[in-house]
């Protein structure tokens, strides 16, 4: 494989709070190739959002990246100054947030906001900037783009607003876009439209995409590879279809089994007992062990990532492998 456009190694982001240290992200590693779409899946507290924020250097106090490396197009991001990071944010790597209402400034027209986003990294004449903005709006499927530039966010529907956010993210043709649950707040039918759009755009522009979501079905419709997070680390990763049809980590298997879509109507769903552990007091060893029906004494040590055939999992007793399994 040619050099990955984004290479994350052993990333750790901790929050130093009054109550203790929250290890929100603890040793996350993955690579992203040009134009590749990766799904980062997990429930609340898994660390997926903080991972996304860490990539953009948007982690606020009391949190900070404590270890690891993030290489974007060969440049190490963790050692850059805020000024250098800002030069790259929006230009080489950008982000789409969950709530389109929060992303857009209600006091400015769309055109003004896009202009601001352009000006942050490039010197363009007013006409050229407007042309680029209108072009992108058309690309994301907003009709009468030039006219719409003069509209305010409240004049757009939720789906349209998210498209505008996507357009802004694409303004400088970044190498990577991090999308944090971008369709969660949208209606089902609009979600479908946005998904199609993103898939086509990624293909056309060659932009790599990290899609953060808790919705396996949504993510699987787009991503060619998935990384499943639990308690701040990636517990399994691999090609989407293989991972979903034949999961290795018990958490992944449990997650898939919990989905009503994969079960027979009326039959109780596979239940993962218990709740996600508090990140302030993680158990020693594998964080999933207390809830896992395959755990043994060995799980008191933290499992390393086992790599095999382009897949990876952190488990001493993976599903579907011939290993010692408790009766």
């Amino acid at each position: 494989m040619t050099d990955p456009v984004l290479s994350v190694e052993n990333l750790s982001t901790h929050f130093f709070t009054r109550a203790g240290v929250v290890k929100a992200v603890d040793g996350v590693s993955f690579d992203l190739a040009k134009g590749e779409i990766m799904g980062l899946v997990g429930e609340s507290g898994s660390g997926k959002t903080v991972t996304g924020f860490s990539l953009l250097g948007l982690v606020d106090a009391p949190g900070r990246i404590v270890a690891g490396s993030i290489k974007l197009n060969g440049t190490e991001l963790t050692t850059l100054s805020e000024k250098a990071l800002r030069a790259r944010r929006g230009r080489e790597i950008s982000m789409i947030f969950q709530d389109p209402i929060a992303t857009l400034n209600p006091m400015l027209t769309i055109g003004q906001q896009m202009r601001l986003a352009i000006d942050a990294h490039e010197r363009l004449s007013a006409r050229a900037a407007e042309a680029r903005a209108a072009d992108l709006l058309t690309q994301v499927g907003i009709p009468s783009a030039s006219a719409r530039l003069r509209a305010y966010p409240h004049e757009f529907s939720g789906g349209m607003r998210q498209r505008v956010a996507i357009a802004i993210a694409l303004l400088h043709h970044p190498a990577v876009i991090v999308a944090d649950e971008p369709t969660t707040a949208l209606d089902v039918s609009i979600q479908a439209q946005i998904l199609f759009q993103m898939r086509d755009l990624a293909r056309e522009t060659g932009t790599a995409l990290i899609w953060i979501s808790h919705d396996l079905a949504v993510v699987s419709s787009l991503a060619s590879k998935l990384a499943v997070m639990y308690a701040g680390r990636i517990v399994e990763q691999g090609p989407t279809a293989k991972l979903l049809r034949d999961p290795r980590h018990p958490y992944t298997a449990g997650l898939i089994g919990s989905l009503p879509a994969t079960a027979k109507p009326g039959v109780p769903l596979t239940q993962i007992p218990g709740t996600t552990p508090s990140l302030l007091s993680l158990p020693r060893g594998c964080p999933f062990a207390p809830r896992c029906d395959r755990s043994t004494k060995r799980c008191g040590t933290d499992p390393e990532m086992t790599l095999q055939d382009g897949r990876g999992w952190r488990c001493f007793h993976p599903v579907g492998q011939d290993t010692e399994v408790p009766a």
Partner: protein
Amino acid sequence: MSAFLTVDNVSRLFGPNLSTGEKIAAKLGAKVETRSVRAVSDVTLSVHKGETLGLVGESGCGKSTLGRVIAGILPPTSGTVAIDGAPVMENGSKITTRVQTVFQDPFASLDPRMKVGDTVAEGPIAHGLTNKSEAGRYVSKWFERVGLDPVWVDRYPHQFSGGQRQRIAIARALAMQPDVLICDEPVASLDVSIQAQIINLFLELTRDLKLTSVFISHDLSVVQHVSDRVAVMYLGRIVELGPVAQVFGTPAHPYTAALFGSVPKLVLDAEELVYFDTIEGEVPSPLAPPTGCYFHPRCPLSSEICSVTQPLIQPVSDLRAVACHHFKSQLADNVSH
């Protein structure tokens, strides 16, 4: 099976929201533009005892409003809701405790300043199901029923997780010993693995307590899993109604077909892992619904009659009903897929 919960021609309007100035102007004879929203229009349904009716639709379709009308929280602008013949509301107030609600947001539906045990006990004490001295035991029993440790009755809502809070909300509803349970998006704010727990709890409780329930959700896979029958809503109207397997498998309404088609579904044992398609356009504003059939501007089967006449809900078979001029074509389309 006779109908246990009947919803008879219920409509609910909101507005017109006139400011004081506009009200005065109207009194003086000026023409003021009235802005009403028909959140629910002419809905007639019945749910049999012990049955779970799923109510689906996108945001703005009126399913939450309908749920609140059935629960006796909002009075209908016209029409009636009755349980076993007895009306739920009278003169705009709820007169029965036989229907209870579980709300969507477990963070918001519990009083943050009250101990959870007190919250659960409040209704039963007020309605004589228990008294102050017995309340502790009564609440503990219900806590256990929903899978919570009775030791926690003296804690405050913020000390629980989302899933636990939802169990408390379910305990509160069930402590009133209702016959009908309205669940308004009860698992929407929960993590997937917690969703599974609550869904399983719901199935277990409705079966054990022989509850009749209306399960409102925008998540089609959840509704498919828990419901016996399902009603699909669009802009305040029911467009299709019938047994879950039939409506999901062979939809009779183009909107149903399109809606189900547009949700990414994980199909683990098929060639294509996830399938979905898009519906054109967006849901129109409820302030200005289209003429005739509300769905016609986005419908692949629409014809002239669709833009002129509102289709009435009519039976397709013994168990199914649909409101569409072209449902026969839709059913035929399904077969050809």
